[in-house]
């Protein structure tokens, strides 16, 4: 590659980075936009650069400073957040495919390849014949032994052992169902798992598990602690875009509310827009980027007739 080409590429990379992270002055930006509108190749390079950025973000290849820059300057719009979400799903799907294909290939390819080497084809065929014949011979002998065991009346043990295994399988299914139900209120990551149906064979089927991220919902009641004295905890999955808090009110004295979230040091980390109550509750969505691990307080204000905020309720929660 010529020096000129390398220099141009580096310039492009620097420009792209400046462009996507909002570091270009308006004039420079407009000139650059004119350039990519006239040069389709440049536009394609920019889109590829954008896709690389998204991949780096999704796969955790960014350092914390880059991540913050990306979240502040890039994830500004719903459209781009959807783009990131799509890429996340695509990469997960493709990487899952790789694992499956490797598993599939390992046995069959090895078996098939044996026949592609002419030198070993004859030897392999001979070895296979020996194996088949040997297998048949062994199975025949085992069948004879089994008949003898039945004759000795030991089959009852085998049946009991099988029953125990079946019981375990069913208990596991029951437990897994129970866990799923108890997680509904504070579920962090919803795992869509095809629940195995009770089967008479002792080995449970291994079905691929597909994980779909879900934004958790946490119901909170006015006051700081739960009735059992514990703080309400939120398990926020890594890939959730945020969490919804259902704020239950004792009385609804205002038409419009506004919420402020403060961290353990009393610093305001999030301020909502106007919230409208639905019956006696409000739903407040908070982006995941605002919710690191720690304790938080939601201060809820109601707008009075003069449009001023009046303290209405407090809620407390912890992010794990």
């Amino acid at each position, binding site marked *: 590659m010529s020096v000129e080409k390398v220099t141009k590429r580096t310039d492009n990379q620097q420009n792209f980075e400046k462009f996507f992270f909002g570091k270009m002055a308006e004039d420079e930006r407009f000139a650059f936009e004119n350039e990519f509108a006239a040069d389709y190749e440049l536009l394609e390079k920019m889109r590829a650069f954008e896709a690389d950025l998204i991949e780096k973000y999704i796969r955790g290849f960014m350092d914390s400073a880059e991540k913050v820059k990306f979240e502040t300057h890039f994830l500004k719009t719903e459209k781009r957040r959807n783009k990131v979400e799509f890429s996340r799903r695509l990469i997960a*799907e493709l990487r899952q495919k790789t694992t499956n294909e490797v598993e599939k290939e390992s046995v069959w390819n090895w078996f098939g390849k044996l026949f592609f080497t002419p030198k070993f084809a004859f030897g392999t065929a001979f070895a296979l014949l020996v194996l088949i014949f040997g297998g048949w011979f062994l199975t025949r002998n085992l069948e004879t032994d089994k008949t003898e065991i039945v004759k000795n009346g030991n089959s009852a043990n085998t049946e009991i052992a099988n029953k125990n295994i079946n019981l375990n399988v069913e208990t596991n299914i029951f437990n897994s169902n129970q866990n799923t139900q108890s997680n509904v209120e504070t579920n962090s990551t919803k795992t869509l798992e095809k629940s195995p149906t009770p089967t008479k064979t002792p080995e449970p089927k291994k079905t691929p598990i597909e994980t779909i991220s879900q934004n958790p919902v946490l119901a909170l009641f006015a006051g700081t602690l739960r009735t059992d004295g514990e703080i309400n905890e939120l398990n926020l999955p890594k890939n959730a875009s945020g969490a919804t808090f259902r704020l239950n009110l004792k009385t609804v004295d205002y038409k419009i509310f506004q919420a402020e979230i403060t961290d353990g040091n009393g610093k305001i980390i999030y301020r909502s827009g106007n919230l409208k109550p639905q019956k006696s509750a409000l739903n407040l969505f908070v982006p995941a980027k605002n919710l690191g691990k720690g304790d938080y307080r939601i201060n809820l204000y109601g707008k009075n007739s003069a449009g001023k905020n009046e303290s209405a309720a407090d809620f407390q929660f912890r992010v794990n």
Partner: protein
Amino acid sequence: MLKNLSKTDFEQFLQTLDSDEDAAAEKYLRLRLSLESFFEWRDCENTEELTDIVFDRVTKKIVEGETVENIEAFCISIAKFVVLEHKRKSLRNAELDEVSDTENFAENFEAEDLKRRNLECLRKCLAQLPEKKRKLLVDYYDTEESTMISKRKSLAEKLELNLNSLRIRISRLREKLERCTKDCCERK
């Protein structure tokens, strides 16, 4: 697309892009993508709608007899005005939006349903891709951070491409899949 124009107006606009019909259509699609990217990177949500507005205005100017020498530059300068108008309008509506943007439970469950549909559609679209292209995508993303560049370079070499061209090829495939998934979800 282009709501306020007649067929003849649009043909006149295409003629400005190129006298050859096919070449004009190709240029139109590329310009459209440039404008959609322009709006997207200017933090606008409704990029398709805004692009239509630009084409509407440019065509109107052409029909009125304005001579356009550099159509791309002309479109981008109109697009810049459209962004400013759009931002002003968005600011005016901000107060109302804040209330209506509030998520509720129903919306949350709808979002989950949408995610499931998205995944189904993505799988369907991946299955529709020719085996060779699907394998290319799988190989491209089958890397860890430490081996990513070297693996992708050797993948590019295998295909007799340079790394940059491979990245562009993957980006095109990714966009194609995104469009396919979006269309599939809208049909469902």
